[in-house]
């Protein structure tokens, strides 16, 4: 019995142990791409060091991140789907949207390249070629910014409505999961360059198509409307948004590299 009692005492000690609650903290609803690429992990300590505000990142697809903020469960947003962001602002949830950086999407695929895309720069032609070759294609299918960009391209490529074909594999997962799936199934997929460069399980995947102006990927920070979200920590949230677009924050974003390659191009001064 004494053993049980000491075990319980130990557990209670854990229960009463105060959490690591910092003096000031905000919850940032963000996308899987800025988390999986390592960007936030890299730049957040610099912001926390200057301001004492710690940032808790909940990484979700853009669609889910916007929903999290709509429900009042986040203080700030960092997302990349212009259309969904506009809708969020039109609904009155967001007040200010500022671009902090851009990179681009690329179409990656197996080195065997069954749809003969390699070296091309026309994303729409590439999607048409994938469809006519019936080559396996992995879709995020998770309402994320990348997923939205992919669906826009399919629409331009003439696919109206959802694609229900065996070669089109909707995995309903994050960017990393989609790349893992594409790597395992020798499939094509659309990915942001940041996640692609930092992804460690590429297998036989290589970049097939890049450089299309339609593949620009913009990251925006959105502050919440003080009337609708009075409970949010808007002060420190604004401090972080301001820091991201400040020369210091922009330098930190531009300085982040993986294997000598820059992942995000700061663009607060000249939004792309």
């Amino acid at each position, binding site marked *: 019995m004494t053993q049980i009692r000491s075990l*319980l005492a130990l557990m209670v000690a854990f229960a009463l*142990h105060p959490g690591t609650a910092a003096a000031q903290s905000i919850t940032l609803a963000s996308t899987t791409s800025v988390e999986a690429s390592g960007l936030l992990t890299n730049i957040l300590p610099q912001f926390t060091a200057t301001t004492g505000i710690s940032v*808790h990142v909940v*990484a979700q697809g853009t669609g889910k991140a916007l929903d999290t903020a709509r429900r009042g469960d986040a203080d700030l947003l960092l997302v990349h789907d212009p259309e969904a962001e506009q809708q969020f602002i039109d609904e009155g949830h967001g007040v200010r949207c500022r671009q902090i950086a851009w990179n681009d999407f690329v179409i990656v695929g197996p080195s065997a390249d069954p749809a003969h895309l390699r070296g091309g720069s026309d994303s729409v032609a590439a999607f048409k070629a994938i469809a006519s070759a019936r080559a396996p294609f992995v879709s995020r299918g998770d309402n994320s910014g990348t997923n939205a960009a992919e669906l826009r391209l399919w629409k331009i490529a003439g696919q109206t409505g959802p694609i229900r074909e065996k070669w089109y594999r909707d995995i309903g997962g994050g960017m*990393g999961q989609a790349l893992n799936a594409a790597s395992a199934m020798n499939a094509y997929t659309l990915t942001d360059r940041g996640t692609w460069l930092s992804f460690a*399980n590429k297998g036989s995947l290589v970049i097939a198509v890049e450089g299309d102006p339609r593949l620009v990927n913009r990251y925006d920070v959105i502050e919440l409307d003080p009337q609708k979200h009075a409970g949010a920590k808007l002060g420190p949230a604004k401090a972080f948004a301001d820091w991201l677009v400040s020369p210091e924050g922009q330098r930190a974003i531009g300085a982040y590299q993986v294997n000598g390659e820059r992942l995000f191009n700061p663009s607060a001064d000249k939004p792309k």
Partner: protein
Amino acid sequence: MGDFFGIVGVSIGVSLTATALAAAISLPLGTALAIFSFRGRRLLVVLVNAFFGLPPVVVGLILYLALSRSGPLGFLQWLFTPAAMVIAQAILAIPIMTALIHRASERAWARYGDELICDGASRMQAIPPILRIIRAELLTAIMAGFGRTVSEVGAVILVGGNIRGLTRTMTTAIALQTSQGELSLALALGAVLVGISISISATVFALAGSARTAGSDEA
């Protein structure tokens, strides 16, 4: 490396707290189900056993909606904190622990119940001695509860948010490493998780052994 110890600390801290919370409810509940008779007792026992297979992701989703700032428990501001993870894990552990304690208490009550009542104890007063009699099974129940909590990922990733340094546990970190394609790192963390859960279980098992010896000395 600091990250690593932080993740292990969050995992073990949250799971131990959840197990303690679940024990505080399951111990009296499991025994009470065995020694009191009241309307609906049978149904409660069936429910407790049926909730063994409660899908973690469903528990996570319901708790997420409840704890959201626009949900009924939003005022607590627990979403995306360790507190939310503790609640989720406790909900998952309670059915298993209660069922195991109920079963052991039932046997002990059948054997010693009459004596305890003859000694003048009320049924309420009989709960502590029954718990003392089944102490070995108590440890098994606590161990099973801890096992359920520490290995869980579906609920804690929803209500905890996998926030670095705050709510990132070993299981959610493994999910994240896998999504970054860092499969060998994910596997290494998995090995640590297995190692830690095995050594905690082994320690508790050894404690149970010595408790049993101590028990026979008393007799």
